[in-house]
């Protein structure tokens, strides 16, 4: 961590053009862009940069694997709304970043990855630890730069920050050759400012489009707002809420949209899509108007596109023109920043009576909606739903929850009720197992005062469990809940439904996670029964340091409801006749 003297020196660099080495320029530019924490791993081709770090007021988090660095930068960005920064060396260091970069790309997360590369003289000669990382990452970055001149470092980095955050956000990689880091140039932060942001020329919100949208909303009998990740990215929570409340339109959320509209709001129907509640998906199929706000009609949301909501007109408000009519053909496209578009649209929206449609949806919920898990009697079995529910109840829903990918991720989405944006951090698009632990570390650095929970499966946790050491080295507090069912649960579920229960390669031996935590000097507790859950959650919360809870849950439980991949939204596999929250398959 830099000292005050460092702070003053690097502030001076920002105002007075100074001759600096390329390595110093990297840090000076990051300071200028407001960066306080970076996540990385040193190596030969990035050593000059590491050597210069001590002169700058930036905290570097040493990861245990570069994938962790890109996930941490991602978690940092998702939790804070700022740009996350990851640093790695050339070759394997750079390639290890890729899974994290692709994760950020698919979920439109602004991160900047800085990699060292071999000297420009040997570029392209298969030198030791040389890899064409700009070539490799071309399809999974919003843009990338290969910098081989010291004077280009500051402009490239500043452009990278602008590109990462503007329009539809995304990851940017800046690859800097070692000789560029070692050379020197005049660092002029102001002069390195990128050209003015050029909005996508196909952004178009025409008066006629707004009028048409307003007319569709006015005449709709069964409208639904589909709210996605774009709501929080654009900061349009208030506008979406105003639209919903004024026109009395129920709201369905995508996985990444959770939190963008309060779970407790009477117009919130819940999550749509593959593991969304049946009434939400049925309502979408029956709707006569869909107002898609900052979402992209992902296949996990639509099921079969040929049968998707055939009775409805569709309004698509979206910042990326390439998403219009990509998956679902829409009637009105308002292409622009969601908040700005809604601000233009709202004056044209009058109050309307939506009670009949809301009543229809309410009545379709049936018994499921009124059932509260905590009132269910204990069958002696521990279910993931209980665990998630208790974490939600005990934290008052105020925690930032970072999930991995799989069954536990869907249960989290179903049973943890998010009131605020940026409180659920999850890999939706790429579905990256191993995401949770490193992303949570990033989130904790972004929000040191917030309670951060990892919810991970036994499979995904083992993919990046090495980052437990990073937690210890950094002395941060995170609460970790492993939903341990001894299977790669979601894959097992697919094998159960679609592959005649051929559980090939899904049963999973894991280490004793509590002992693993102990080996790191982290406290832990195994939980086997439901009555222990609440106490364990409290114990984790009140412990001064990171705490790991190993929840040994029902092994062969499935996530319901479920739309089989490629089926229509109304062709859901519903919860079986017996109540899986009360009974185990073993009870039969």
């Amino acid at each position, binding site marked *: 961590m830099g000292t005050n003297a460092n702070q003053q020196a690097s502030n001076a660099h920002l105002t007075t053009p100074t001759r600096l080495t390329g390595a110093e320029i990297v840090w000076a530019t990051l300071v200028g862009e407001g960066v306080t924490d970076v996540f990385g791993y040193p190596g030969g081709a990035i050593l000059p940069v590491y050597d210069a770090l001590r002169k700058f007021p930036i905290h570097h988090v040493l990861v245990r694997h570069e994938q962790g660095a890109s996930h941490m930068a991602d978690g940092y960005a998702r939790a804070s709304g700022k740009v996350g920064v990851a640093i790695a060396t050339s070759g394997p260091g750079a390639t290890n970043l890729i899974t994290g970069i692709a994760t950020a790309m698919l979920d439109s997360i602004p991160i900047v990855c800085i990699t060292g590369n071999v000297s420009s003289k040997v570029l392209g000669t298969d030198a030791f630890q040389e890899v064409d990382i700009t070539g490799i990452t071309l399809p999974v970055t919003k*843009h990338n730069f290969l910098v081989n001149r010291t004077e280009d470092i500051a402009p490239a980095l500043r452009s990278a920050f602008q*590109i990462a955050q503007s329009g539809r956000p995304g990851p940017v990689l800046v690859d800097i050759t070692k000789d560029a880091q070692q050379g020197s140039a005049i660092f002029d932060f102001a002069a390195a400012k990128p050209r003015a942001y050029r909005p996508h*020329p*196909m952004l178009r919100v025409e008066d006629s489009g707004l009028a048409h949208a307003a007319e569709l909303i006015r005449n709709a009998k069964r409208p639904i707002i589909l709210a996605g990740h774009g709501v929080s990215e654009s900061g349009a929570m208030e506008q979406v809420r105003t639209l919903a409340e004024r026109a009395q339109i129920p709201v369905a959320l995508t996985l990444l949209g959770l939190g963008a509209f309060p779970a407790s709001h009477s117009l919130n129907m819940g999550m749509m899509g593959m593991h969304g509640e049946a009434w939400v998906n049925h309502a979408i199929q029956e709707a006569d108007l869909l107002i898609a706000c900052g979402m992209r009609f992902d296949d996990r949301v639509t099921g079969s596109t040929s049968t998707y909501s055939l009775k409805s007109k569709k309004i698509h408000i979206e910042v990326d*023109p390439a998403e*219009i009519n990509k998956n679902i053909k829409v009637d009105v496209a308002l292409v622009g920043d969601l908040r700005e578009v809604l601000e233009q649209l709202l004056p044209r929206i009058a109050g309307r009576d939506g009670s009949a449609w809301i009543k229809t949806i309410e009545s379709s919920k049936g018994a499921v909606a009124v059932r509260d898990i905590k009132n269910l009697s204990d069958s002696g079995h521990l279910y993931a739903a209980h665990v998630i529910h208790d974490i939600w109840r005990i934290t008052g829903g105020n925690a930032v929850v970072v999930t991995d990918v799989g069954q536990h991720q869907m249960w989290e989405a179903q049973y943890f009720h998010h009131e605020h944006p940026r409180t659920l951090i999850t890999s939706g698009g790429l579905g990256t197992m191993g995401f949770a632990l490193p992303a949570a570390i990033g989130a904790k650095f972004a929000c040191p005062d917030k309670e951060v929970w990892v919810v991970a499966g036994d499979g995904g946790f083992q993919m990046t469990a090495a980052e437990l050491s990073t937690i210890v080295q950094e002395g941060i507090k995170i609460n970790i809940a492993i939903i341990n069912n001894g299977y790669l649960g979601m894959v097992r579920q697919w094998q159960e439904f679609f592959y005649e229960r051929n559980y090939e390669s899904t049963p999973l031996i894991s280490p004793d996670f509590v002992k693993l935590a102990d080996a790191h000097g982290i406290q832990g507790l195994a939980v086997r029964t439901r009555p222990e859950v609440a106490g364990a959650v409290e114990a984790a919360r009140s412990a001064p340091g990171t705490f790991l809870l190993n929840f040994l849950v029902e092994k062969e439980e499935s996530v319901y409801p479920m739309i089989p991949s490629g089926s229509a939204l109304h062709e859901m596999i519903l919860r079986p006749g017996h109540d899986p929250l009360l009974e185990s398959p073993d009870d039969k």
Partner: protein
Amino acid sequence: MLHTFVAYVEDLPGVLTRVASLFRRLNININSLTVGRSERVGLSRLTLVCEASTEAGDRIRASLYKLENVVDVDDIAKDPAVTRELALIKVAASPSNRSQIFDLVEVFRARIVDLTSESLMIEMTGVESKIEGLIEVLREDDGRILEICRSGKMTMRRGHHTSSVLKAMGAKTEDIADADAESSEIAKESTVIEPE
């Protein structure tokens, strides 16, 4: 349907890869691609022809725009435009049968740009079908064609037209990237079609 995209791209290393990679990812084959200097300093103009569904046009255009180095994209489609291709064709010809080829060249309004005792080179500019026509006739004699080099299509809209994007960028000499003496030299060399 056949789509013709005209794009202004920054004249930097790797830009062509980014454009080509977009089509690769969509598994769309590029029928033809020509790139050269434009009237704007630091910007290259490319014409790209590909076969894709009618609906794909808008999405490809939108996706091209998303590339940081792409400044302007026009989907010419069916709008009135002039499209030309340049072909260089080397044919085997001895002094005894040259005159036959001279006649052909005149009929097709092509011209001879190189002549040796064993071969001659034909330069032809025109629409694709015209070039195909000349090649077809030349092929009537087996083994006569030695080499064919075709530029691919280049397209320009008819009439007075400047895209709103380029208009917003102002005068055509405005710098996007600094042009140095070296690059303007290359510009002269890459001028393909000489005024007749």
